């Protein structure tokens, strides 16, 4: 059932107007941050107000611009248009909620460290959300690509925020990876899809896709892999390297990048295209799922092993993100109902848990100026709340009950068992990666609570970071537990997708 509604446009505009207000209020920081807050809350409320309609099985659509009029009978018009369906809601709901938490957290972080250019920071932050929600609500490949590129450009100043050599290097790598893949792979794929199918609109279910029956299998396969690697924000190896490079950014940006906007835009775009452009039928017929699953399995294992070697906490989290994102794609690539559900629910589960971990890393840095895990021995006894939250979120990443990550792992494991072939291989991948997760997350918590202080270190004057940081991070950790115990809210959306 389709309902015409401009609510998705209002949600996106909330972020855009928020950006303009932030720029206008500029130097008056309280007023400026109030603008960010109001924008975030408004956006969340608008998105939340759409939840009942979506859960009732309806789809909201609207069209803004006609970027290309219908050229002939074979070539349909290309529009900037939006749709709100269950699939979009998984991402939009989580991202808009986390934006509110992040606004408060970054207030504490940026002021705590007396960072420069906070207006630019806040403005770009809001713009990144503008792009992310635009991606979530995109109704066709063009709209998706448009907002995907907006996210790339708007997050560049955030990554380069410190404006030192390291910042510029990281940001250059970031933009080179993302624009090269988007222009070099997604753009030709999009044009070829338009030439072959005559449309860029997404299909209305996850099975059929948009390709006509006679489309060349080789061409569709090539286009598929262009999309898989073209949306490089998804962190699939070998196009993942921008992510560790972007770690030079301030921590709230890392949190935004890794949990809310950027990487989720990547996996969301990838899975949206896999399911709604190619469709499970085409993927099954051309046997695209299994190779994809092996590619992302390689990413899962390799990134976890690299994470083991990192002593810098944020670098370890970055590789953990690379690994965890591939869970989402793995789930969809396995093409069994439970696996797809497991993959999609991980968009939300990973978001809450990973943002907790990054918030903790930032809080630790603000409170103690420690970046490396080896320097954090005994720090948990000084900052118990932060490390407790870290422990909870780690459990979620590992996939231990009753935290959110368990739901993902359970669904994925069930999903592998539903497969007719290759099931043992992917079961082993998931189990091995779980062990690796334990290997790189458990030592952090253990060291912090039970480890010895480094020689000569007294943690004099170190205490929990300010409340505006600890409350958001603890809240995110608690939500990780809640959606682990009551996964139904998000599972309802996921179930609506798989039908």
């Amino acid at each position: 059932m389709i309902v015409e509604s401009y609510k998705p446009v209002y949600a996106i505009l909330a972020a855009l107007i928020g950006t303009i207000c932030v720029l206008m209020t500029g130097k008056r920081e309280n007023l400026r941050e109030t603008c960010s807050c109001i924008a975030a809350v408004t956006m969340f409320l608008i998105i939340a107000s759409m939840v009942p309609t979506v859960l009732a099985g309806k789809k909201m659509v609207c069209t803004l611009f006609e970027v290309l009029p219908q050229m002939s009978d074979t070539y349909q018009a290309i529009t900037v248009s939006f749709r709100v369906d269950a699939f979009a809601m998984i991402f939009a709901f989580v991202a808009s909620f986390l934006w509110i938490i992040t606004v408060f957290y970054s207030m504490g972080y940026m002021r705590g460290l007396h960072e420069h250019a906070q207006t630019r920071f806040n403005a770009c932050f809001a713009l990144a959300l503008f792009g992310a929600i635009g991606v979530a609500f995109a109704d066709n490949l063009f709209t998706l690509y448009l907002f995907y590129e907006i996210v790339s450009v708007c997050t560049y100043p955030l990554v380069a925020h410190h404006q030192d050599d390291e910042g510029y290097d990281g940001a250059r790598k970031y933009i080179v990876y993302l624009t090269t893949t988007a222009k070099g792979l997604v753009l030709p794929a999009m044009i070829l899809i338009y030439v072959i199918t005559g449309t860029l609109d997404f299909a209305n279910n996850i099975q059929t896709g948009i390709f006509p029956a006679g489309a060349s299998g080789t061409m569709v396969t090539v286009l598929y892999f262009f999309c898989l690697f073209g949306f490089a924000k998804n962190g699939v190896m070998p196009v993942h390297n921008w992510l560790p490079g972007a770690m030079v950014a301030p921590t709230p940006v890392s949190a935004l990048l890794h949990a809310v906007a950027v990487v989720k835009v990547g996996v969301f775009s990838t899975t949206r295209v896999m399911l709604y452009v190619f469709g499970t039928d085409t993927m099954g017929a051309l046997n695209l799922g299994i190779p994809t699953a092996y590619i992302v399995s390689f990413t899962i294992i390799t990134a976890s092993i690299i994470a083991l070697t990192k002593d810098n906490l944020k670098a370890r989290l970055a590789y953990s993100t690379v690994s965890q994102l591939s869970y989402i794609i793995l789930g969809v690539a396995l093409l069994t109902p439970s696996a797809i559900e497991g993959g999609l629910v991980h968009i939300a589960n990973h978001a809450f848990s990973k943002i907790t971990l990054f918030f903790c890393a930032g809080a630790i840095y603000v409170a103690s100026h420690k970046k490396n895990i080896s320097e954090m021995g005994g720090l948990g006894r000084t900052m118990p709340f932060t490390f407790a939250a870290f422990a909870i979120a780690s459990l979620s990443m590992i996939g231990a009950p009753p935290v959110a990550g368990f739901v993902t792992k359970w669904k994925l494991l069930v999903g592998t068992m539903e497969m007719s072939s290759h099931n043992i291989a992917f079961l082993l991948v998931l189990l091995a990666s779980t062990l690796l997760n334990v290997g790189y997350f458990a030592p952090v918590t253990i060291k912090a609570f039970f480890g010895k202080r480094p020689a000569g270190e007294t943690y004099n004057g170190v205490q929990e970071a300010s409340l505006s940081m600890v409350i958001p991070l603890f809240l995110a950790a608690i939500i990780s537990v809640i959606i682990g115990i009551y996964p139904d809210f998000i599972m309802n959306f996921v179930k609506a997708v798989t039908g």
Partner: protein
Amino acid sequence: MDFLLINESYKFFDIGILSIIIFLPVLGSLVLLFINNDNAVRYFALVVTVANAVISLPLYWGFDPTTPKYQFGEHHAWFPGLDIWYTLGIDGISLLLVLMTTLLMPLCVLGSWKYIQKRVKEFMICLLIMETSMLGVFMALDFVLFYILWEAMLIPMYLLIAVWGGPRKTYASIKFFLYTLAGSVMLLVALIALYLKTGSFSIPNMMGQGYSTVFQFWVFLAFFLAFAIKVPMFPFHTWLPAAHVEAPTAGSVVLASVLLKMGTYGFLRFCLPITPDATFTFMPYILWLSIAGILYGGFTALAQSDMKKLVAYSSVGHMGFVTLGIFVLNKNGIEGAMLQMINHGVTTGALFLMVGMIYERTHSRELAMATGVGKFMPLYVIFLGFFSLSSLAFPGTNSFVGEFLVLAGGFTHSTLIASFAIPGAVLAAAYMLRMLQKVVWGGTKNPDQSYLFDLDAREVITLAPLLLFVFWIGLGPSPFLDVMHTSVHHLIEQVNAASHGATTMASLIP
């Protein structure tokens, strides 16, 4: 004159609207001769160009997009003894180019407001004569008239570079002159050949005559040289960076936005309909030359340290997309190419204006001297950001629509050829973002830019209309594409109907 539609309601004292638009600037330049105050000269030139822009607007409203015929036609005897007529008319191919020219000229005057301090009067006269001849080229339907105006353009353009240019202006202006003249000679050869064959100078009458393939081959080659130099296509492009770098801002804008379009306009008006067989014969070679231009322009732009050279080489790449779109010979490709001609005029024109603005402040076009100005010129970098994104075909901006259509046409024709253009799109992002990054932020060691002042009202007024078009074409291109459909359809019919199929090159050389 069955190809000409004469709109009686668009006449003023029995003078057709096209003639008014053509001759208003040159009349204005005559009046300028008697004005001696520099500021009065500037204001008067502005008034004339704005008036011309306003007068040209009814062309859009009065244009009938359902017919491929030439509209607002005028047909008067000129040299009856030689069968040379004063024939004017515009169709869907030339309409937007005419409008773009008239709308850009006021911005050129505004962009030279402070830049030109010497010989202001002479400068403005040159600019106005340029406008007359450029508009004439797009409207002329008699080959001799076309040729005269085409040649007439050379002189004021030469003067713009040679008198008001930079340090190497003599070298650049002579190079420009010689290259273009070499092309024009070939155009004259084609003109005479076609006259001997048809006995008429009327361009529409030369179309669809079913000439022999050998004749078409040689005429096409003559046309091709003339137009390829003007575009400029790789490898005839070497005059362009020199001319751009040395030309004053307004000269660069006119050169990039309008003059280059005459080459591609020539392809559409002459090569395709008059020599369709040869078009098919040469198509693959021209497509590969276009790809070479796209890649060469992209790589060279990436290596530039001079902002103006960077934009100049980016033009080579962008015009490669235009020729690519034209010679895939399908609707998407040609309409994309025509839209891309307008887009390039808007975006590259704006970029040249912006480079000029930074030059007025730092007296250097070196990228290294303009690093990190973002902090002191926020308004400037916002405009620069939008125009750079437009230049790299960011979705939602004008160039994206054009590039999308060109590549869609390209992929329909040949996946192989079009895929070679994709690295060009990536390179465009690379060199534009590199420039943007350097100008806005630079590095950790920027020169002291604190003396810089942000854009003033005049500069904002110069850039704002172009920004409007960037987003208008980017988000709602229908008004621009709608006027093209019929003419492009007709053009493709002309190419396909007259074709006896492509022949190999070897069999054609007598």
